[in-house]
């Protein structure tokens, strides 16, 4: 009874006390400029400071932000966005259509790293003070989905501080300072050391968090970050090394938040005709789809997840995961593990007796090197001879670009969270001018996929679009264009008493954080 009443008192004592919150990240955002670098650490952090016309909710669905509503205009001519009134930037100036036009010009400029988002856009037109039309060259059903990270900057502020265009190489005022409309404002920025945020008093939204000050510190060494969490020096770390998860779960002072990231890990193959590797393996060994199928069937993905990921990841069947738009439920079955069948296929395809050059990064994805070693061993079980070569990611991409591989590991996180995205970047026949297939290192090519892609991009009707996406997913599976392995796990560590929401794009959204003081 006494214990019960104590518990009651504690619950009553809980509500909203002001909180100083500290968290650690592995990678410090390179810049505070929302248009200069299109990378997750930058966009994830700046989502707390800047806002776009639309934003993603807790379940990653698109919801209104600086635009209250939007609708397609004309016959697929573009989209009309009705802007929120009464929004102010952190320096006090008002937000209106001119800032949208300015942010479009800034984010789509050659100096910006975000310009590819606006490739389908022909013009942005100010209709009135709070209405903007974004015209596209072709009907574009997923345009609102693709601009959730396009953040609005105040034109007056940028002009006054000489930061009208982003400057990646030399940096400018916007590299170290920020002025958004978001729930938190930048108080101080010391690159690589600490970045301090405080709530923006004039924010338009309803405040859910109870933070009064937020400090972000980069800690690169995972052991140090974990020690900082355990000793209470920080309240949140991301990621927690998979091997430490069990140990943390036994500690009452901290808790582990687990989920999956919107990133599918897969194997790719060199499918370019007559591409002789630099002395490694034979040319064309993976031109035969049976050879790729042999690899797909030889890998026991659940076993890898059980041992290396300690049960923290999910098997993937296609290039997107079930939470994403355009996922093909008709093609949800992953390749079945069958070592005997794999051995037979490998022999038929002439893969047996050749050495497969398998390239793999060792610092890009969670436990990537261990996964590749397991794959190498599994392929050996099915009679395939694999020579594994792992390297840091800085050396990895140049190696793939130079075509020095027969097989490689890749993780893909679609920026639009839509099935069209990986088709455009991974499955379309590489075409520099059309900006297609820029990450299709193995030069996979299928005429039907290339034909369907533009139709998918401009199809307004959802069910017709899904039918085409299903067809592409089936083709990719039949061709074994890639071997999807699993969806990357997300493991966050947090002090007990902190409530937060884990979003599958691995963004840490501070306005959903509350700290309960016991």
């Amino acid at each position, binding site marked *: 009874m006494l214990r019960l009443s104590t518990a009651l008192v504690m619950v009553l004592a809980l509500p909203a006390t002001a909180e100083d919150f500290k968290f650690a990240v592995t990678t410090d955002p*390179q*810049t505070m400029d929302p248009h*200069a*670098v*299109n*990378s997750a650490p930058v966009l994830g952090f700046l989502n707390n400071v800047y806002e776009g016309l639309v934003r993603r909710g807790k379940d990653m669905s698109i919801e209104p932000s600086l635009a209250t509503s939007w609708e397609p205009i004309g016959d697929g001519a573009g989209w009309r966005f009705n802007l929120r009134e009464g929004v102010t930037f952190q320096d006090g100036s008002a937000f209106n259509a001119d800032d949208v036009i300015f942010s479009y010009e800034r984010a789509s400029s050659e100096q910006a*790293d*975000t310009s*590819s*988002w606006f490739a389908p856009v022909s013009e942005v037109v100010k209709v009135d003070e709070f209405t903007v039309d974004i015209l596209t060259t072709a009907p574009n059903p997923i345009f609102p989905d693709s601009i959730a990270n396009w953040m609005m900057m105040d034109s007056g502020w940028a002009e006054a501080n000489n930061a009208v265009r982003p*400057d*990646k*190489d*030399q*940096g400018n005022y916007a*590299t*170290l300072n920020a002025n958004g409309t978001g729930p938190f404002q930048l108080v101080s920025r010391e*690159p*690589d*050391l600490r970045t301090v945020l405080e709530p923006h008093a004039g924010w338009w939204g309803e405040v859910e968090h109870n933070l009064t000050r937020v400090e972000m*510190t*980069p*800690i*690169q*060494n995972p*052991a*140090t970050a974990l*020690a*900082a969490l*355990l*000793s*209470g*020096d920080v309240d949140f770390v991301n990621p927690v090394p998979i091997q430490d998860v069990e140990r943390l779960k036994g500690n009452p002072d901290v808790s582990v938040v687990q989920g999956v990231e919107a990133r599918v890990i897969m194997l790719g193959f060199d499918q370019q005709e007559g591409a002789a590797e630099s002395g490694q393996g034979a040319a064309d060994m993976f031109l035969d789809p049976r050879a790729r199928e042999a690899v797909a069937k030889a890998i026991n993905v659940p076993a890898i997840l059980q041992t290396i990921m300690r049960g923290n990841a999910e098997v993937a069947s296609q290039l997107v995961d079930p939470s994403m738009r355009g996922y093909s439920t008709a093609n949800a079955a992953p390749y079945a593990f069958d070592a005997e069948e794999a051995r037979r296929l490998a022999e038929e395809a002439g893969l047996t007796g050749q050495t497969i050059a398998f390239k793999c990064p060792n*610092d890009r994805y969670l436990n990537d090197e261990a996964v590749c070693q397991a794959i190498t061993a599994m392929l050996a079980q099915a009679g395939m001879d694999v020579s594994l070569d792992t390297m*840091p*990611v*800085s*050396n*990895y*991409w*140049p190696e793939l670009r130079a075509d020095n591989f027969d097989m490689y590991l890749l993780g893909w*996180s679609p*920026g639009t969270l839509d099935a069209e995205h990986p088709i455009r*970047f991974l499955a379309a026949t590489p075409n*520099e001018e059309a*900006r297609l297939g*820029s*990450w299709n290192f193995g030069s996979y090519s299928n005429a039907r996929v290339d034909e369907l892609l533009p139709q998918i991009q401009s199809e307004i009707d959802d069910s017709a679009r899904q039918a085409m996406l299903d067809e592409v997913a089936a083709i990719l599976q039949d061709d074994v264009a890639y071997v999807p392995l699993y969806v990357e796990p997300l493991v966050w560590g947090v002090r007990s008493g902190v409530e937060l929401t884990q979003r599958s794009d691995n963004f840490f959204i501070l306005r959903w954080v509350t700290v309960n003081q016991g």
Partner: protein
Amino acid sequence: MLSFIIKRVGQSILVLLITGLVAFSMFTFVGDPIDNMLGQERTMEDVERLRQQLGLDQPFIVQYYRFLEQAVQGNFGVSYRQGRPVAEILLERAPATLELAAVSGIFAIVLGIALGVFTAIRRDGVAANLIMSASLIGVSLPTFLIGILLIYLFSVELGWLPSFGRGETVKIGGWSTGFLTESGLKALILPSITLGLYQMTLIMRLVRSEMLEVLRQDYIRFAKARGLSDRVINFRHALKNTMVPVITVIGLQLGSIIAFAIITETVFQWPGVGLLFINAIQFVDIPVMAAYLMLISVMFVGINLLVDILYAFIDPRLRVAA
């Protein structure tokens, strides 16, 4: 003396130029910075444009020449990762490393000499033998392990000291110091011990063996026969003669305290130049790597030069030979 110094300076500059050449020839192996600078939606066109803009399409000799050309004018370029001038970043980071190095250097020298003399004088004592055995730990355990053990014990288990970082710092001019705040001083303890432990045991063992050697000399025996007190014999006559080789080693070790602070800084997330260098390697931030390596080699060469000159002052025989 002057010709000796001029000759040594000339040699030093040659060493610097060769170090730079080797460094630049290695950068191509570290990887390609372009992928780290552009997002996943970049095109090949963007990649090539940026490569050209940064001059990375040129052979390393040309890149090295351009670097030297700018460096002699005091311009070390702009960091690929932070988009800020490298010189500015290095100046911002240097106080952290220098303060850490100073504290661990003093810790190593004071404790190293004191314990060395103690173990030499009380050669057969229990305490001296205990210290000698314990010093093996300092010599044989790798720095990162000592660091993690200290963090585990004093931060996680006992909660006495911070697990990472520098604590609060105070800015005096352009120099940010951790000496003036309580959290800053507390934050210095663990990293200083981690960084200084190896040097401390090294100095201690060196002082001990040199001192034992000196204590066997005839002049010590004569001093004893003259009836001088132990204190005078040990500290005025023996210690002074022990110090000649010890100073050389201390000088060289000071350089390595700064250069090898990299590991300690990584373990403790200490925001100094070593951590900056590690981050630069991961990102392939060539301007930062180049400036750091040149800075470290200037420092090493400079310290060697100083030690040589100091040596000549302490030992008159070298002066004559030069």
